[in-house]
């Protein structure tokens, strides 16, 4: 009955912040700062997420069941401070997949219309 049958398409389109957080978590659990770094790396620094956007999005994604908290532990590559880790849920993975498919179809559509030729006159 309830969220167990939730359709991933109901979440689309995702905001850029949510999409990038899901993408950052796709290859394993991460803490907040690692997510922030990953987003900056995969977007070549075109998206820089502040702590407010990061944790505001995390709060909503937890509520929607897209991610879940793992545990709190130090990150050996940083310091001995304990950090809260997050990971994708099954639903989060399906939503990420659906959004990637949606974006890919948009790109395909743009390519079919030869959008790139507009700029070159």
């Amino acid at each position: 009955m309830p969220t167990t049958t939730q359709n991933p398409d109901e979440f689309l389109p995702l905001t850029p912040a949510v999409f990038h957080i899901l993408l950052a978590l796709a290859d394993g659990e991460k803490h907040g700062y690692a997510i922030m770094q990953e987003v900056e790396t995969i977007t070549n620094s075109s998206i820089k997420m502040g702590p407010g956007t990061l944790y505001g999005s995390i709060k909503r994604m937890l509520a929607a069941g897209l991610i879940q908290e793992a545990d709190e532990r130090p990150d050996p590559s940083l310091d001995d401070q304990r950090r809260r880790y997050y990971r994708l849920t099954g639903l989060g993975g399906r939503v990420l997949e659906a959004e990637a498919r949606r974006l890919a179809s948009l790109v395909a559509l743009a390519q079919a219309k030869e959008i790139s030729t507009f700029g070159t006159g």
Partner: protein
Amino acid sequence: MSTFTNDPRLVRISTTIYSTILVGYPRLFRQEYGPHMRQVFRDACLNAYIRSGFPGLLSFWALTLFDWFKTVIEEQLNRATYMTRAKWVRLSGWSMMGGAVVMQLSFLIDANWIRARIYRVMGAPVSQAEYDLYGSIAERLETFPATAGILLIVLGISGLRQHYGKQLTGMWQGGFTVCVGGGLLTAAGALSLQFSDAAWDVLSIGLFLMFGTLAIFGVAAVRAGLLPGWSGIPLLACFWFPLFITLNQVNRWATGELWLELPHVFDWVFTLSFVSLFLLGYELQRGSEVRSSPTIGIGPVEDRHHRTGDHP
């Protein structure tokens, strides 16, 4: 998570300033995520300072202040919306409780009871015309309490939808809409009882739709353990009316009798249903408190659900 004594002085000062401006966020959000935001700020600030020195720190601050301003407004707006919704759900729980009490009382208030009250206020009738007038007023007023009770219960049902709707799929949410429609039909039928015989049919159809769809919600509530207390309450509240109406209708087709003659069954159906509706209203307003409890966090039932890993 709290001390970074080896950090450069500018980073330490920046972290202290950031910790101070976190006060702009709603209290629950700050309690839940404040320490982590501060830690992330410190990590990013240190990184910016190591990579680009003072200009890097300034540029990081510009980004952070913009982010702070935007998200403080967002979170405060979310909080305001959430509080309004929680209040509405609590009120609708009280409304359902009140509706159940009014409905139960409405069976004690018949036309004779109202007529006696009219006599007490206006004095006993001195002519046949006055007697008929008072009788007519009493008969029309007789259905008012039941109508008011049904409307209060309909308000309660809309609160149920608000509170539990998001946890249900589209079909079940549609059930709530039918339920509210059935409630309004019931109220219209009750109000028209003195004017038309067809009003009984309207009333029966309305009751069947209202309690039938609520019984379906009851099944969903039991399966998912939706209520904070015993999740069987909606089913207990809504099972009896559809059963009684169906039996009555079958009897009507078979024998032509308007009402199924079962001693006291109707009284029991009403009492059981309205006691259960009262309990459902109680659970609803209690559920709204559980959801907004600070010990659970910001986004209450869903959060609790997902933190325990109890989700897909």
